[in-house]
């Protein structure tokens, strides 16, 4: 097997990975970026609304970084590490300024400075944006910048697993998808910037590639996931493509209706109606569908037609585009089909504010792959893009410091085993196909570890996922092609998804309270006495080991979360 050596390997070419690579390369270290897609195809491109930033001299006159910390902590239902939220907030302005200096085409005020707008959960407006394609714009800007540096890109390389030698991370084994030939990448540090895991759920706004490979690799290497039970669901994803229809659609007057034409939110939230919090609306929609008042396929309708063509086109351009192009529905003339869908993963590889994992020296993570605990139990809009860049940079700088004090590492003794494990699926002559297992997994997660949770469902999920993991050992890849064999990579993705699923289901069962996005029908209240703490979960064979870690509170004491 070919052996390549770098100072750092970054797995993932989205915003977080590229920002990390930028810092490492700028400091003169040798860095490889491995990504299973060409970098600009990463899920960062899907972010719509914007990036929150307090910019000194270019913000609301009443705003301050302190307000931004407060909004983030409260939004996260107090499971936020407040020191992390402070970094996020205090460094937001310089991050936007940096991306602007690299050419990002932020929308402008008439004097040519970056414009701002309101977003949900903000006391003062501070979201910076590029039309409604902010993620796409920033991803391209940073790729343009980093591809001009001395960084080696390995695009369409699938990372199989981390290499661990002497209880520290010493590289990865990856495979070029085109030629299917594996290679060892030796490195003193590995940064997981592999994004989220929406594909675990039957319905998700995430890209097809979001299979949470980094979470699974970290678990298999012996690192913990932090707060794995926290999964955010968005109430209005377009049926059936699950493209996000922004909350703005309801903010501007859109009404949710069931198959009888009833405005059902009157039952669930008589005061706030369609503008009730995301979790409330998601639960309402799913209840309507479960009780037979949805449409075939399992959706309800989001009606904008009464707003008038001019208004809709002016205010909700993206809803119009999405409806027309992806559902064949013109929201000016007919209601949009919507249903809740998984949207974001608050949990992730356990790291501190420098992106370092405490279990394995040399292991770092950034972006949605990491859990720095800036989002706590529920992420605020406009904070995910910001996190990728702020903590991508923090992590990159921490990696540089780590490298400066790092000794040469010993080669991993047996990297071939990683390849053999992966190839076991191809070598087998019969068994199950990835598609069969995947469908069941995504259904189980959606129904039993989804918006509504309770002991019965979660127990059922744990045993189902455990069973699926056993079945998947016998997975069988029918495609024998030695070029771009996507069936093989799908099988590996499924293996990764199963490793996370068991952890998510088990920790969700374990947390007997409701907080943020984790809603337990049998424990509907937040319980700070018992549960104001982070979950840490390890995967040891088939067993999930759970421990805890305190939440870092600097100045904002928990209070009831009312809006």
């Amino acid at each position: 097997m070919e052996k390549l050596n770098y100072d750092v390997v970054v797995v993932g070419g989205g915003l977080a990975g590229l920002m990390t690579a930028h810092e490492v390369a700028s400091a003169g270290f040798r860095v490889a970026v491995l990504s299973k897609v060409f970098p600009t195809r990463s899920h960062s491109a899907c972010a719509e609304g914007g990036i929150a930033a307090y910019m000194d001299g270019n913000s609301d006159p009443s705003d301050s970084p302190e307000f931004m910390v407060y909004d983030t902590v409260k939004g996260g239902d107090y499971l936020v590490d407040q020191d992390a939220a402070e970094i996020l907030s205090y460094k937001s302005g310089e991050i936007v300024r940096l991306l602007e200096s690299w050419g990002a085409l932020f929308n402008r005020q008439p004097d040519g400075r970056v414009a701002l707008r309101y977003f949900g959960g903000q006391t003062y407006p501070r979201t910076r944006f590029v039309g409604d394609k902010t993620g796409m714009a920033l991803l391209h800007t940073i790729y343009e910048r980093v591809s001009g540096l001395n960084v080696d890109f390995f695009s369409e390389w699938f990372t199989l697993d981390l290499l661990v030698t002497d209880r520290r991370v010493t590289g990865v084994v990856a495979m070029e998808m085109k030629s299917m030939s594996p290679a060892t990448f030796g490195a003193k540090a590995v940064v997981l910037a592999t994004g989220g895991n929406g594909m675990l759920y039957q319905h998700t706004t995430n890209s097809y590639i979001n299979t949470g490979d980094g979470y699974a690799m970290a678990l298999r290497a012996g690192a913990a996931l932090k707060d794995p039970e926290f999964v955010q669901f968005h109430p209005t994803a377009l049926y059936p493509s699950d493209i996000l229809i922004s909350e703005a659609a309801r903010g501007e007057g859109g009404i949710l209706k069931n198959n009888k034409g009833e405005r059902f939110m009157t039952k669930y939230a008589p005061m706030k109606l369609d503008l009730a919090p995301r979790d409330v609306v998601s639960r309402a929609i799913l209840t309507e569908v479960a009780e037979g008042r949805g449409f075939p396929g399992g959706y309800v309708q989001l009606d904008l037609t009464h707003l008038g063509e001019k208004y809709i086109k002016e205010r909700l351009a993206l809803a119009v585009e999405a409806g027309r192009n992806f559902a064949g529905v013109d929201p000016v003339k007919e209601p949009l089909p919507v249903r809740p869908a998984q949207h974001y993963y608050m949990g992730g590889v356990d790291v501190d504010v420098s992106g370092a994992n405490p279990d394995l020296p040399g292991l770092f993570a950034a972006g949605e792959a990491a859990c720095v605990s800036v989002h706590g139990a529920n992420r605020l809009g406009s904070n995910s893009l910001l996190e990728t860049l702020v903590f991508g940079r923090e992590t990159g700088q921490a990696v540089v410091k780590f490298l400066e004090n790092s000794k040469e590492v010993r080669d991993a003794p047996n990297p071939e085993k990683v390849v053999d494990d992966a190839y076991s699926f191809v070598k087998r002559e019969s068994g199950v196909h990835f598609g069969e297992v995947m469908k069941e997994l995504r259904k189980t997660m959606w129904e039993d570890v989804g918006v509504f949770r309770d002991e019965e469902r979660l127990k059922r999920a744990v045993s189902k996922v455990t069973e699926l993991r056993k079945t998947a050992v016998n997975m069988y890849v029918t495609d024998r092609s030695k070029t771009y064999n996507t069936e093989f990579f799908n099988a590996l993705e499924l293996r990764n998804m199963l490793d996370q699923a068991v952890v998510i289901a088990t920790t969700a069962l374990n947390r007997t309270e409701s907080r943020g996005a984790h809603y337990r029908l049998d424990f509907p209240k937040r319980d700070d006495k018992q549960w104001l703490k982070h979950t840490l979960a390890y995967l040891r064979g088939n067993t999930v080991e759970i421990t805890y870690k305190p939440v870092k509170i600097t100045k904002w004491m928990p209070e009831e979360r009312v809006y």
Partner: protein
Amino acid sequence: MEEAISSVLKSIGAEVSPWIPVSERPGKEPFAKEAEYKAKDYWGKIHLRNTGELYVLVVTKAVKNWKDSVGKLNLKGRVVDAVGGLLWLKENPELLKGDLEMISSFLARSNTAVGSQSHSR
């Protein structure tokens, strides 16, 4: 032009800074001139393009969101952007004085009520 605008601002009792040229990047010829001003309940800047277009930024803490308030004002200038305490107007030198006076009196009125305005919504 710059002098005329400065004197309009001074006539409503604002302090005005000297005009400075602005360009897209260092070393590029300026595309506009700017002056900062400070009035009683608000402050901001005047942005004057080389092509003659005139923009005015009105900043205040007295308004939670200009977007909800501009409808109540009968401004002659065009509202280009209104978000939180920031308001951008495209102005005409002849109409500037009237608009600024209107804003001054609107803020003076709402200032007396600002204590009771809730910040939570």
